[in-house]
């Protein structure tokens, strides 16, 4: 009777949404636990879920283990081991670091961990080998209590296991002394510590539990995927982030109901949207595209509209301290003589690279140098938003893609000049950047990072697929050709060398513009905002305006760089170049080298383009007399995945050296030599006095 009243479809949707909902809730709880007990918003949970799922898959299908030992290994041994290792080696030492530093480290880990696992465990995702769940014959119908929705055995296992996990967590909180201590830490970490409760142990336990939850969620969700690849687990993690955001990242019940609600909401939406689309034709393009992106829309919506979050902003960083301000740039502290030397060296070095590039380099080297140049342009966008404004943006890939797709569309449809189209694309990216930033700017810090990540995934799942952006599904596969510009007598498509020259010119212009902004009023305002927002406001600086300008400029540069990357490759190559996960790696790369200087961005561009072919493939040995292409030592080529591992792990240094490793090294070297020069100056000054 009741069934008929509220509609059979609706009930079916709720039932259908329950199993994934419990899994989202599981990771959502993990987010809240670690965030509240150690102040880390652990974006690496996606990676941890992936590792457990892949471990389970490997144990089952390659080693032929039984279900129970495979679960024990992947969920109860590997998962907590990773969590405890991270807690002990990294995050425990960073309790007083700012929430943003911890976030950058977590992003670095989420880039490094999957690659590291794949290298160590020698795991390769193979298409067509479908993962199985923790019950035999999981896809068969187990039980159909209402005759409305038949639960499969896998789904039932998801509900039961996740449910038991949540109940155990609740019971532990309610009935054990450790649970009481943890509840205390969650409520007020500092007070609990004052009361003599070992907060370290509590946070270690929280990490172990939430890592088990993440690993369990990974194993449970795996049967829903066709192939186990790490990117899918980022999507899962974003869903769990939305669940945690419902609880303002701090409420456990909020995260639980957030996860359940999300599961239900998505299922209901998926049920009804196709029908609405039948009635209202304008919904048609959304029908296929909106569904996979619903979680990101929900997450973005929650961040913008959930009133509790506005209030949570100040209180949300339970343990975070304030990072000491980044030290002065090495370049500004140099002794005049050292500055001169650096400049002479710099000019010689650039001259040498230029000479080699334009006269000696072969096709392959020109391609590498062009890639490095174009990526440097894109990375300058990170210099602006992260280096100057101190904000973490994870949607630079989307901005770059907007530039690239604009060129593709305008040239394809209106036969426009590619260079004009690139500028228009950059301008569109700037507008989109400002629009994205507008509603979430007040949030700042961790919340801004989450919101930009949501936008990046939304762009990836929906906007790219529209025919007026990515050219429709077919174009994404068959190719989104982008020509190179022709200016007067120069056809940059004819000569790779000429295109490299054009890219270098654009890089120089953008670099100069970025330096001008840094030294000008905008840059100074952003610097003032970073060190004291209240003081900056007291002299009339509008935080929102300054940050929107930073966002728009950053998006403009990213769009321009993206357009050039597309022109260089002759194709947008969206999945390879601009996916949210690729953009995450950009951020990691730039902040781990140096986010505050223009050189840092260029070095990051060079590192991205050259590290793998030159170092990992062993090409550098060919410069030595003995080696050539055929007799490289057996360890080469080293897997390109080491790139992710190396730079991802370098990001761990962010809390201690927020200026980046290169800048840190430069500063130390500068200091040493400065000391020497100044000592000599002092001697000289003293010498004539002694003579008189």
């Amino acid at each position, binding site marked *: 009777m009741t069934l008929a009243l509220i509609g059979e479809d609706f009930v079916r949707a709720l039932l259908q949404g329950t199993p994934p909902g419990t899994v989202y809730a599981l990771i959502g709880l993990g987010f809240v636990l670690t965030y509240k007990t150690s102040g880390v918003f652990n974006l690496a949970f996606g990676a941890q879920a992936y590792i457990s799922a892949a471990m389970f898959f490997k144990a089952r299908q390659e080693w032929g283990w039984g279900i129970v030992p495979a679960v024990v290994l992947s969920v109860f041994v590997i998962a907590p081991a990773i969590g405890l290792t991270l807690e002990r080696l990294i995050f425990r030492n960073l309790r007083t670091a700012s929430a943003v530093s911890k976030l950058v480290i977590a992003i670095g880990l989420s880039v490094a961990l999957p690659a590291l696992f794949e290298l160590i465990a020698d795991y390769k995702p193979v298409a067509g080998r479908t993962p199985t769940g923790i019950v035999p014959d999981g896809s068969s119908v187990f039980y159909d209590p209402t005759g409305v929705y038949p639960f499969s055995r896998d789904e039932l296992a998801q509900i039961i296991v996740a449910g038991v996990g949540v109940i155990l967590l609740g019971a532990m909180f309610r009935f054990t002394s450790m649970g009481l201590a943890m509840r205390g830490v969650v409520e007020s970490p500092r007070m609990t510590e004052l009361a003599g409760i070992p907060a370290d142990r509590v946070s270690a336990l929280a990490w172990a539990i939430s890592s088990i939850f993440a690993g369990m969620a990974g194993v449970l969700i795996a049967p829903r995927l066709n192939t186990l690849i790490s990117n899918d687990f980022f999507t899962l993690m974003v869903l769990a982030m939305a669940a945690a955001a419902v609880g303002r990242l701090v409420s456990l019940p909020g995260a639980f109901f957030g996860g359940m609600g999300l599961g239900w909401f998505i299922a209901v939406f998926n049920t009804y949207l196709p029908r609405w689309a039948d009635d209202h034709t304008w919904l048609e393009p959304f029908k296929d595209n909106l569904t996979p992106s619903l979680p990101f829309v929900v997450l973005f919506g929650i961040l913008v509209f959930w009133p509790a979050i506005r209030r949570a902003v100040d209180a949300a960083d339970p343990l975070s301290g304030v990072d000491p301000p980044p030290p002065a740039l090495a370049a500004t502290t140099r002794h005049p003589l050292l500055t001169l030397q650096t400049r002479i060296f710099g000019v010689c070095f650039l001259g040498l690279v230029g000479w080699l590039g334009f006269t000696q380099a072969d096709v392959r080297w020109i391609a590498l140098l062009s890639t490095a140049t174009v990526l440097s342009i894109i990375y300058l966008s990170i210099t602006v938003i992260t280096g100057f404004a101190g904000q973490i943006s994870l949607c630079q890939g989307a901005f770059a893609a907007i530039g690239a797709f604009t060129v593709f569309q305008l040239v394809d449809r209106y036969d426009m000049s590619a260079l004009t189209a690139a500028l228009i694309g950059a301008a569109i990216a700037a507008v989109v950047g400002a629009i994205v930033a507008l509603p979430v700017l007040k949030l700042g810090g961790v919340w801004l990072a989450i919101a930009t990540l949501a936008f990046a995934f939304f762009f990836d799942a929906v906007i790219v697929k529209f025919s007026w952006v990515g050219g429709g599904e077919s174009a994404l596969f068959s190719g989104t050709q982008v020509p190179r510009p022709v200016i007067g007598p120069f056809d940059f498509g004819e000569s790779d060398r000429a295109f490299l020259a054009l890219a270098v010119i654009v890089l120089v212009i953008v670099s100069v513009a970025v330096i001008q902004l840094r030294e000008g*009023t905008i840059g100074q305002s952003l610097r003032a905002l970073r060190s004291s927002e209240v003081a900056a406001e007291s002299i009339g600086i509008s935080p929102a305006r300054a940050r929107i300008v930073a966002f728009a400029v950053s998006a403009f540069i990213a769009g321009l760089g993206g357009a050039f990357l597309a022109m260089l490759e002759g194709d947008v190559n969206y999945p390879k170049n601009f996916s949210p996960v690729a953009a995450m790696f950009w951020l990691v790369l730039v902040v781990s080298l140096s986010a505050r200087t223009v050189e840092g961005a260029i070095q990051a561009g060079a590192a991205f383009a050259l590290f793998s072919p030159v170092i990992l493939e062993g090409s550098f040995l060919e410069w030595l007399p003995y080696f050539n292409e055929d007799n490289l030592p057996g360890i080469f080529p080293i897997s390109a995945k080491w790139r992710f591992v190396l730079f991802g792990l370098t990001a761990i240094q962010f809390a201690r050296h927020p200026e980046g490793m290169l800048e840190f090294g430069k500063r130390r070297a500068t200091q040493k030599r400065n000391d020497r020069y100044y000592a000599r100056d002092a001697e000289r000054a003293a010498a004539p006095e002694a003579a008189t």
Partner: protein
Amino acid sequence: MTAVLESEVITKTFSGIQALSDVSIRVDAGERVGLIGPNGAGKTTFFNCLLGILAPDSGTVQFQGRDISSYPVHKRARAGIGRTFQRIELFSDTSVREHLLIAERVHNGTGAFWKDLIGLGRPRRDEIDRCDDVLDLLGLLDLADEPIEALSLGQGRLVEVGRALMTEPTLLLLDEPSSGLDRDETTALATTLRAVQAEKGFAILLVEHDVELVADFTERLYVLDFGSLIAEGPTASTLAMPAVRHAYLGNLEVSDG
């Protein structure tokens, strides 16, 4: 005299606790006014309502005849309200002169973005000169190139004053400027402030609990206790009022006196 600042019946409650009730004050042009009260009287809350950091439940703030109640913090600053901080707030990794320069350039910064791009964002000679004038006035010229980390607390307060002065305020709000300073430093600060005010002619609202500084420095006084004004008037006579002495010193001291 024209009123520079008028706050009318400002009321603020925090989860049921009446932090401010019907507080109305007025500061005239060029005047030095004090706002005092024991700890917990609502001084800081009131201050934050004036500056737009907190939104009062009711009441308005008028500044130079304009209702600025709906202005955000930075807009009030642009309208001409300068301030200093109780816990000193300076920009790290910046010299004393750079502090004033950034304020000067933000103050005059229309179309900053395009100017920055074509290189006009760098400080001009006349901007540097204006900063140096103010530094001279505050006696900080010798320290102009020092990093702010090298300054004493008293000097840091003066840098805050200088930074606020670059925005040419018509009203300067001083939030407990004596906190952390000893008697001599406080006296020196008051002397400098008086000299600067004589030169520039802005009004000062001093929020303070150091009664000696208030007695010495201000012309008129408002006294807050438990969120309400309990007295107002010329400084000397107001400080002598029994209600004020009672609020400040308690029963025992009064009977002793």
